[in-house]
């Protein structure tokens, strides 16, 4: 009885269709795994490329905005220049004050304000930030780093 069971198992193991199925299964497993890795890699790469393009566009936008800002500032200065303001004042019916026309009022304790230039709100935060490597390196670069330097400690 035991011998018969052993023969059946042996026959089952040696069946050609069984071996082929095992091989095909293993092959498909490798293909699916590779496809998953490829899909993941493509996704990360595509997103990185999109982010890169956005950075390039933003860089161009920053330059444009800076130029526009400088233009507007200069244009405002053109409109409020000494000659322009004098012309507008004369057109509006004003005339230069004469010394005898000024009345001064004594205000004890009052002092003329010192010249003060209001600083434009500038971004004073550090611009170069340390970003983790995971945000910058590709999958292949990650593999390459692991192969060269091993796992991080």
């Amino acid at each position, binding site marked *: 009885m035991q011998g018969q069971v052993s023969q059946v198992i042996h026959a089952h193991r040696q069946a050609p269709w069984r071996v082929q199925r095992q091989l095909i299964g293993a092959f498909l497993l490798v293909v699916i795994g590779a496809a998953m890795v490829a899909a993941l890699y493509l996704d990360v*790469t595509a997103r*990185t*490329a*999109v*982010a*890169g*393009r956005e*950075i*390039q566009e933003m*860089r161009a936008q920053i330059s*444009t905005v*800076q*130029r*526009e800002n*400088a*233009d507007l*500032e*200069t*244009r*405002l*200065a*053109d409109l*409020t*220049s*000494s*000659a322009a303001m*004098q012309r507008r004042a004369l057109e509006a019916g004003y005339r230069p*004050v004469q*010394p005898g026309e*000024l009345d*001064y009022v*004594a*205000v*004890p304790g009052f002092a*003329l304000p010192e*010249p003060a*230039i*209001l*600083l434009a709100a*500038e*971004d*004073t935060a550090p*611009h*170069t930030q340390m970003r983790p490597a995971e945000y*910058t390196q*590709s999958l292949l670069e990650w593999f390459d780093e692991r192969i060269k330097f091993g796992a991080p400690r």
Partner: protein
Amino acid sequence: MRQQYAIRSLIIAAGLVVAGLAVIVQMIRIQTSEQAMVFLSQGDRYSGEFQMFYPERGEIYDRSGHLLAGNRTVYEVGVSLSEMETPDSMAYILSTHLGIPYEEIYKKLSESPETWEYVVIQDYVAMETVDALKGLAQQLDDADDPRLSGLAFKPHLQRSYPESSLASNVLGFVTRDGRGYFGIEEKYNDLLAGNPVQIWVPRDPNKASEIPKVPNGTTLVLTLNRDLQAKVESLLDEALSDYGSPNGTIVVMDPRNGEILAMAATPRMDLNNYGNYFSLYDDGSQYNRSIGMSYEPGSVLKILTMAAALDAGTVRPDTSFIDTGMIEVGGITIQNWNRDSWGQQDMVGCLQHSLNVCLAWISSQMGTQAFYGYMERFGIGHSTGIDLSGEATGRLKVPGDGDWYPVDLGTNAFGQGVAVTPLQMLMAASAIANDGKMATPHVLYSMLRDGHQYNVPSQYAGSPISAETANTLNEMLAVSLEQESSQALVPGYRLAGKTGTAQIPTDYGYDAFHTNVSFVGWGPVDDPQFMVYIWLESPSTSIWASETASPVFSKVAEQTVILLNIPPDVVRSQVVPK
């Protein structure tokens, strides 16, 4: 049979394995060869490019925040030759908009080397012109008309001066290569220009990264008061016209700290058209006469001689001097300006009547060592150290110099034989108005960089005389002006000052018909808040400073007290207890 097949199969398999191994070995050999390194470096070279990022040039403001120098967008107009289809039409349209001859553009478009992909037609094109071209290009593009296909515009910034010629002598200008010339633009060129940064920019978007922010150039705030500057320039132009003077300068300074409030000189140029420079100036020293040109100042220098003599104890205000109309110094006879004798005078009288003989006597009494020692301490013959480029040092001959003669001790005392710049005289006189402390003149009030404001502290160039001497002379000069009923006076304000009428030296002696007229004055006498120096060259209506420079001082002082909000003495005395 089966065995034969097996052997063949093994041979073929072995052959394939060997071939495969050979391929792999060859791949490794190629990858690690010297040529591979060359190819890799070539690949790297085209994977991106080094780009230079130029910071925006820092702006320049006056002390109240009015923009004096900024930046505006201009364009480089070019054509992408590979996209261009009709060079003749392109040349015709561009020539009408850019004002360049058709032939010149057509030659550029049609005769450029084949390797060229892009050709620049014109740079620094104004935004309005570019907007018109862009609009036309868009219209043609919508109509599938290729006449402007390939036209490209590259924007960049250019220096711009909203006030045109206002304070042009102080500001200087920036050429298209980004370098500052004269004035503030040259003196602080490195600060204003900032530091350009060269960065590798990859073409692969996967490798794109944030470019570190390139900080703008430092923004400067000047001590100038724009409204006062405009008024002083206007008064200078009026004075030149009224008195027939070809050129002149007026400087207004705060004697307490050396801040230059206004500095006007002629000629002035529209800084947005700096190409006019060569038609306006013969050399760089004429760009700002206040600091760049030295001259014999004449009697305004008498206040320094008197200050030195009072401080050294040689004379007192009530010291009596009998003026006989002439004095001999070093074997040469010196006379008064009108060749007359003025009899008995005290020191106030000597200043009031501007007596050369009296001042020559004073310097003779002091002796060369004491007199020239004081002149050195007043900074005569040395640059003031003002933060503007192109300052001249003037010339003070001293004993021991090859061209110094004993008579110079007498003539130098009344401002002859000594060359100074207007600013040197102003700095020296600031010691009299400021309790003996001589303020170093400066134009920079503060710097703005990386969100921080750095104020420039005032500096003093020493104390050539004591506070007591300064106050005594201050009072003497005020009395002197009042007693002669000078045209320099301003109602309501007590002022101190001195005129100067100087002959002009030539290669053949002094010019008999022309003079330089000057005035140095300050006020209010009890609390000096402004100093004014005036120099008018060769006025034709009168050779005397009392008839030309004095009334100009009065007008400048009158406007200065209004624009600086300085109340009349009566009002101030109610607030500040004496």
